[in-house]
């Protein structure tokens, strides 16, 4: 049987969920016995490949690039997992949502800076009006909250998905 293909990415997040994924310790051996990680910050691939089975997506959808990557991951993956509070609720990135984007950028890059370079436009993606949970941008199959989700919760979810079951977090469900 072919190995299951896992893709991961982080959008507007702190990478903490990926740290928690690494923190499953020797659990990774069992996961990699059944699956390959084919895309993400932990591997070299430059583009989200076709035919991914499980997409683990960390972070809120906050910029044009986030939205594009989320949409690509959705199109090319069977199961999309919103990994962590930012992907599930918007969490800390969404705390900017009460402030208009222009004001926010000016506050940071003009009022908050003594470099005088102004709001950057080259090489950075445009911010969306709101940093939103992943499910407001694309269809999400599994939600795993937590800031970050405990390694045990991530390992449980991966284990269930690799066995073809729908994970029920039960008592492992936790926000914050």
């Amino acid at each position: 049987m072919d190995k299951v293909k896992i893709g991961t990415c982080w959008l507007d997040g702190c990478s903490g969920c990926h740290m928690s994924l690494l923190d499953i310790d020797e659990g990774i051996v069992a996961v990699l016995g059944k699956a390959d990680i084919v895309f993400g910050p932990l591997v070299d691939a430059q583009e989200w490949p076709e035919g991914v089975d499980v997409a683990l997506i960390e972070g809120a959808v906050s910029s044009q690039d986030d939205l594009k990557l989320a949409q690509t991951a959705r199109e090319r993956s069977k199961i999309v997992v919103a990994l962590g509070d930012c992907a599930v609720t918007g969490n800390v990135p969404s705390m900017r949502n009460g402030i208009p984007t222009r004001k926010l950028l000016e506050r940071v890059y003009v009022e908050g800076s003594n470099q005088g370079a102004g709001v950057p436009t080259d090489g950075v993606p445009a911010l969306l009006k709101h940093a939103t949970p992943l499910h407001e941008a694309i269809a999400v199959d599994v939600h795993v909250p937590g800031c970050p989700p405990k390694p045990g919760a991530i390992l449980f979810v991966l284990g269930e998905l690799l066995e073809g079951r729908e994970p029920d977090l039960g008592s492992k469900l936790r926000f914050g």
Partner: protein
Amino acid sequence: MTDKVKVRIDGEVIAATAGQTILEAARANGKYIPALCYMEGLSAVGACRLCMVQVSGVARLLPACTTPVQEGLAVDTMSPQLHDYRKIALELLFSERNHTCAVCVSSGHCELQALAQEHGVTYVRYPYNYPRLEVDTTHPRYVLDHNRCILCSRCVRTCAEIEGAHVWNMAGRGIHTMLVSELQRPWGEATSCTSCGKCVQACPTGAMAEKGWGAEEMTKQRTVVSRLNSMRGEGM
């Protein structure tokens, strides 16, 4: 002797005391009905809608915290339908303001967070409202973060009914309702506040919290030591 009435809760017959609410009777008999705005010792207002139960023969759901028991009453407190309604109530609470567990003083000790986890709320189906709300830091000892307030009014009732100061009130209507101190004065300027802190303890979320624990927040009252010493007549 107090009058006893027989009621059936989830199929089990229990002897309740006349005058008790369904919630009180259930809890007195070791039965769990979730609730947020209810607090033992305070009047009940039926604001949070988490304790909604199905009373046999009544077409609509009723809040267990404000519905008195009656002889022969049969109540269903935990059907899948009620579970779904409670999930909806919780999700709407989350969607209304900015509840960010990761940066909240009450994370891990929050009744809203605990109830969401208990009810299997893995995400919020409704669009978030993202209101721009103030944090009142004017009180020297306590802080009020409106982002985390669910308008349960436990603080209002605690202050009015237990402390007898009635500093807190609700102002506005519907989604614009806000908790206010006195006549919309900042908390630190509320002259009727006794700084007893019972509202903080009654708050189910992190909306009300004690100051002094964050970085740079702890102000020490060093004069206390010297003053006590001089009051004892020593060092005069």
